[in-house]
C-alpha cells in the first residue's frame, strides 16, 4: 500500500510540524514534545481544555485547537496513547491558574496515561479535572464503552463553556452532561493500513462489513455481508435511538463522521436516510454535521453520533469556534 509519507518512524513528528507550518498564527508546538497548543496559551483567566490520544484520527485532535474549543492536543504514536510526560507538558503550557480539563477517551492506555499526568500536575499544584468519553454503544457494558466521534461534541461544548469563563468544576460538569447524552455507533467497510507495518490493521473479507467497529479496528458487534447505505443507516439508528431516552420535545444534534476514505458523496447518501428516518420517527434535529472528524487513517466507513440537547447545550454548540476542523 502506497502512502504519502517519508520514514514511518518520523510520521508523527513530521505531521506535527506540518500542522504548525499550516497554521503558524494559531498553534505552536512545545519543543521536543508531541504537544500542540493554542499560540496564545495559556489564555489568561480561562480554564484550559486538553485532549489527545493515539494519532491516526486526524483532524482529531489538533484540528480542534482554537478559540472556543481546545487549548492543547497531545499526540501519541499511531493508535497508541501518548505518555504521561507529554500530557503533563500540555497541562503546564495551557494552565493559566484556572485549572485544566482533560478530555479522555475510554481506552485503558489513555485513561492510565492521562491519569498519571494528572498526578504529576497535582505534585506541582496544578488543578486538573477529567472527563472520560464513552459514547460507543457497540460495547454493551457502559463502563467499558469506548470514546469515539462523540468526543468532538465534548470539545465543542465544553470548549465554549470554558471560553465563556466558567470554572473548572462547571466546565467539567457541562462536559459530563455532553458525555451522558451522546451515543455513537460506526461501521467499517475496509481496514486502514498501519504506516509502520504497511499491513491492514484488521481483516475484512471483500464482501464483508463490520458493524460497531472501534476507531482502532477493535472488534465490533458483528460482521455482515455487504449492506446498502440505507440498511446501515437504519441498523445504526435502531440501535442508537433506544439508548437516547428522548422525550417528545427533545432536539438532537447529529454527526455523520467519515472514517477516512469514504467519499463525502457517500456520507451524504447515508445522511439522507438518517434524516428521513429521524423525521419519520418524529425526532427533531437541531443541527447536523457531515464530514471527517474522527478518522482511522484511510479506513472506509462511517459513524453516526446523536447528542440530546438542552438549551445550554444548544447555545454552547452554536457558540463561535476558530478551530480549523470545526469552525463555527
Amino acid at each position, binding site marked *: 500500500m502506497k502512502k504519502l509519507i517519508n520514514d514511518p518512524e518520523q510520521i508523527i513528528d513530521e505531521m506535527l510540524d506540518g500542522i504548525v507550518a499550516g497554521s503558524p498564527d494559531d498553534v505552536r508546538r512545545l519543543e521536543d514534545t508531541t504537544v500542540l497548543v493554542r499560540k496564545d496559551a495559556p489564555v489568561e483567566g480561562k480554564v484550559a481544555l486538553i485532549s489527545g490520544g493515539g494519532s491516526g484520527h486526524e483532524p482529531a485532535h489538533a484540528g480542534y485547537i482554537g478559540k472556543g474549543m481546545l487549548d492543547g492536543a497531545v499526540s501519541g504514536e499511531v493508535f497508541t496513547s501518548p505518555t504521561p*510526560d507529554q500530557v503533563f507538558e500540555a497541562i503546564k503550557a495551557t494552565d493559566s491558574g484556572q485549572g485544566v480539563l482533560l478530555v479522555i477517551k475510554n481506552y485503558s492506555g489513555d485513561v492510565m496515561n492521562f491519569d498519571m499526568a494528572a498526578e504529576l500536575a497535582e505534585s506541582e499544584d496544578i488543578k486538573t479535572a477529567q472527563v472520560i468519553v464513552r459514547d460507543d454503544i457497540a460495547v454493551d457494558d457502559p463502563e467499558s464503552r469506548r470514546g469515539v466521534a462523540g468526543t468532538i461534541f465534548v470539545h465543542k461544548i465544553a470548549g465554549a463553556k470554558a471560553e465563556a469563563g466558567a470554572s473548572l468544576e462547571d466546565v467539567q460538569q457541562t462536559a459530563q452532561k455532553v458525555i451522558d447524552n451522546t451515543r455513537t455507533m460506526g461501521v467499517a467497510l475496509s481496514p486502514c493500513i498501519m504506516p509502520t507495518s504497511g499491513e491492514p490493521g484488521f481483516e475484512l473479507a471483500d464482501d464483508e462489513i463490520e458493524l460497531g467497529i472501534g476507531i482502532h479496528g477493535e*472488534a465490533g458487534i458483528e460482521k455482515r455481508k455487504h449492506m446498502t447505505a440505507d440498511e446501515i443507516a437504519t441498523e445504526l439508528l435502531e440501535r442508537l435511538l433506544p439508548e437516547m431516552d428522548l422525550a417528545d420535545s427533545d432536539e438532537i444534534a447529529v454527526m455523520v463522521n467519515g472514517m477516512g476514505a469514504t467519499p463525502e458523496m457517500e456520507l451524504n447518501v447515508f445522511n439522507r436516510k438518517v434524516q428521513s428516518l429521524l423525521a419519520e420517527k418524529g425526532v427533531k434535529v437541531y443541527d447536523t454535521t457531515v464530514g471527517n472528524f474522527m478518522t482511522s487513517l484511510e479506513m472506509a466507513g462511517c459513524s453516526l453520533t446523536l447528542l440530546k440537547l438542552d438549551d445550554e447545550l444548544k447555545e454552547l454548540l452554536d457558540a463561535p469556534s476558530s478551530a480549523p476542523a470545526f469552525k463555527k
Partner: protein
Amino acid sequence: MLIGVEETIQWLKNYNDKLSEQKDYLSQLDRAIGDGDHGINMARGFQQVADSLDDDFDDVSTVLKKTATTVMSKVGGASGPLYGTAFLKMSMACKGKEVDAGVFAEMVEAALGGIKQRGKSEEGEKTMVDVWSPVLDMLREGEFDAERLKKTAEDAMQNTEDMTATKGRASYFKERSQGNLDPGAVSSYYLFAELADVIGKGA
C-alpha cells in the same frame, strides 16, 4: 545475591534484543485481539531503555528507576504505564538493598500490586497480570530456581490462551479473544525468561 547492577543491565539489554526480535510476533498477537501495536510499543520503548543504560549506576534500584521513567515516557499505550509502574515499584522495593531471592519476591509483589492498581485489573482477565501473579506465587515458595521461573512464566503465558479478556482493548473482542495469547502476557513471559537466562548463566 541474585542480581547486581551488571546483571540487571544485561537482563534489560537482552530483553530489548528479544523484543526487537519478536516485535512483529507481538504486534500480530495484538492485531488478533487488540490494535496491533504491542510489539512496536515495547520495542520502541526498550530500545530507549537499552540506550540509557550505558551510564554508571550505583545500585539495582537506580537502574530500575531509570528504566521505569524511560518506559513511562517512551512506550505509550496501555503497556507503557503498566510496565512503567512495574519497574518503578520494583525499584522502590529494592531501594538500599541487595537483591536476593527474598527481595526479588518483594519486588515482584510490589510490581504486581502496582500493575493491578494502575490497570484496575485482577487475575483471570487475560492480561499481563496472569503472568506476574503465578510468578509471584512461585517466588514466594522459597528457593530461587531460574529454570522454574522460566517454566512458570511460560505456562502462565500459555494459560492466557483460553481466557476471555475483560480488560484493555482485547476485552472488546469478548469470546473472540479466546484461542489467542494475550500479547502483554507474552512480553511479560519474555521478561522473566530473560532474567532466568541471565541468572542461570551467572550461577
